[in-house]
């Protein structure tokens, strides 16, 4: 019982700190701006932050931190909205929402998908924050057990799982995932600092930008595909608020995925080396694998929204642990949170939790408040977003072309990224023609550099002896799971009927 008394005390302290009118206002401002900017393709948290940054230096620390946390959740959330409604991911991690959310929209269930996304992300955030409050110190020490070898094994598992999750052949999935890793090697090599596959173009030294690649593969490809089909066959959408509510059947299907997704997200969130969607895609692939009828996935299965969305938000709380206790930011927003703290003379480190309990727990409480505000703000907005679909596609798609171009431009304020966008779009369309799926390529691209980096480093540390992988308990068990997954996938694929009846 003691642990719960402590938990209660801590959370009470946190909410006491966070629930002031001015803090709520800053949090709402962050959430709102994050949401609005996040919906625009390619524009993510960075733009929202650059707008809010000047303010953070003028308001109290707790308010600034809450506002930034609000932006974090808001932009992350907003990115999924355009994935579901238009098949155009607002940012790379939201690409997973395209898989089943967009088909749901095409079936006239876009509002329901948005609603379930809202519920799942709130649920995931709540679970994640509770786990964080209970286990914060323990999570930090788990993260330290993960060295280069462990990360490499885990990344391999995630890649194989996501490459074989699509509807096509697992062999092609793995091949295209490897091509994604190859694209990821473009740029400066981490160990030597030398450029690779840049062909003398200095803009390529930082590699192909993730947001630009995702926009090219998904947004441009989707635009070309939809225009080619002539007048879109999107089902009639209903626009009443009641029509956006999931059915009893939807709820029944979503509870399990939300629980599993949250657990997975909270666990992976604490491992700083796995950020960037690994857990989210893993959550999706687990749901598909344990489902009794996996063929529904990719065609509008609501589980495909619920699990990754819960997983994503459960992980954000966990991601904060290494930032705070080790002083190590995982991404730009975390870096800013850290910066705002350092401006106040708070040195991050394991002692932060004990030395500044009001700040720490206040921040955790504000995460939850941010999510509450997100729900309050977004439920009424669902009806508004769905109305976008009432606009005829012939009017909508030139706007999407423009938004996508501006999004790509905004990444570095550079037209080079727009050129890359067009190339990625062409590649995406050719891949569609050759029946390659875009998700494994994207995942290979996201996780590949990290895999190469950790694998290379682990071989240095293991003195070139690969068998060390099988001598360490964590690496050995992860590799065993990976192997089992490969065998199982190909065995299942070989049992599939050669030509299922299709409508």
């Amino acid at each position, binding site marked *: 019982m003691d642990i719960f008394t402590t938990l209660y005390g801590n959370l009470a302290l946190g909410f006491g700190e966070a629930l002031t009118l001015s803090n709520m206002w800053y949090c709402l401002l962050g959430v709102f701006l994050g949401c609005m900017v996040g919906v625009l393709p390619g524009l993510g948290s960075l733009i929202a932050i650059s707008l809010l940054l000047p303010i953070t230096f003028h308001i109290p620390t707790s308010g600034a931190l809450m506002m930034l946390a609000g932006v974090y959740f808001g932009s992350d959330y907003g990115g999924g909205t355009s994935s579901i409604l238009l098949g155009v991911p607002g940012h790379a991690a939201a690409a997973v929402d395209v898989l089943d959310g967009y088909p749901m929209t095409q079936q006239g269930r876009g509002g329901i998908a948005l609603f379930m996304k809202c519920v799942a992300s709130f649920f995931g955030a709540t679970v994640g924050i509770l786990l964080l409050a209970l286990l914060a110190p323990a999570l930090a020490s788990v993260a330290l057990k993960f060295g280069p070898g462990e990360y490499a094994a885990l990344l391999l598992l995630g890649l194989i799982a996501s490459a074989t999750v699509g509807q096509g052949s697992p062999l*092609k999935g793995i091949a295209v995932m490897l091509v994604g890793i190859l694209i990821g090697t473009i740029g400066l090599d981490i160990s030597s600092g*030398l450029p690779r596959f840049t062909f003398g173009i200095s803009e390529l030294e930082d590699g192909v930008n993730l947001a630009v690649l995702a926009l090219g593969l998904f947004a441009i490809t989707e635009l070309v595909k939809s225009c080619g089909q002539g007048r879109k066959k999107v089902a009639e959408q209903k626009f009443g608020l009641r029509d956006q509510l999931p059915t009893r059947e939807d709820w029944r299907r979503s509870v399990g995925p939300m629980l599993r997704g949250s657990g997975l997200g909270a666990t992976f969130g604490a491992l700083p080396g796995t950020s960037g969607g690994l857990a989210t895609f893993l959550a999706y692939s687990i749901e598909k694998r344990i489902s009794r009828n996996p063929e529904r996935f990719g065609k509008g299965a609501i589980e495909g929204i619920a699990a990754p969305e819960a997983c994503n938000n459960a992980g954000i709380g966990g991601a904060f642990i290494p930032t705070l206790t080790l002083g190590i930011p995982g991404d730009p927003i975390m870096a800013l949170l850290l910066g705002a703290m350092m401006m106040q003379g708070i040195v991050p480190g394991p002692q932060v939790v004990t030395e500044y309990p009001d700040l720490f727990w206040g921040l955790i409480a504000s995460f939850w408040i941010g999510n509450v505000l997100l729900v309050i703000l977004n439920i009424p907005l669902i009806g508004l977003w769905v109305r976008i679909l009432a606009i005829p596609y012939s*009017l909508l798609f030139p706007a999407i072309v423009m938004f996508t*171009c501006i999004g790509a431009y905004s990444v570095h*304020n550079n037209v080079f990224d727009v050129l890359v966008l067009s190339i990625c779009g062409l590649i995406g369309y050719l891949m569609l023609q050759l029946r390659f799926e875009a998700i494994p390529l994207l995942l290979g691209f996201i996780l590949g550099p990290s895999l190469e980096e950790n694998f290379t480093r682990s071989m240095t540390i293991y003195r070139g002896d690969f068998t060390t992988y099988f001598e360490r308990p964590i690496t050995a068990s992860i590799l065993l799971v990976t192997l089992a997954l490969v065998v199982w996938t190909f065995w299942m694929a070989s049992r599939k009927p050669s030509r299922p009846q299709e409508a």
Partner: protein
Amino acid sequence: MKSPDMRDIASGVTLIAIGLFAAIYAYANYRMGTVTRMGPGFVPFWLGCIVAGLGTLIAVLPFLSARRDTIEPPPFHPRPLIAILVAVLLFAGLVTRIGLVPTTLIVTFVSALAERGFDLKRTAMLAVTLAALIWVIFLLLLDMRLPAIVLPG
């Protein structure tokens, strides 16, 4: 028995080409290093080899079995592909030279050509509305560093 699927063979051949290119380019230009201290060429070289290997497998398998992939790709449409890619390239070429507002007008017209049944009046109205909207969102509200319009001279 049906004839082997051409698209699978094309995919396999594409993969072989990509893999061989990566492997050869990496081998020729970058240091390979040893397993303990891998050079910049090590990973791309072996990745390229594996991709080419899988490509071979994918190209050959259709000859060995009559099994088919289950996803039907959409038919190939050159018109929207060209219109949209040209629109994106025009954006890249024009936006810093003539400004965001005129670029929006041009890009809207070109991308509208992607669909059959191009309607001049409708597109013109769309272009103007869109230009105004984009000016408000990106330049006024989001404060992006792009010129609204660059006057010649």
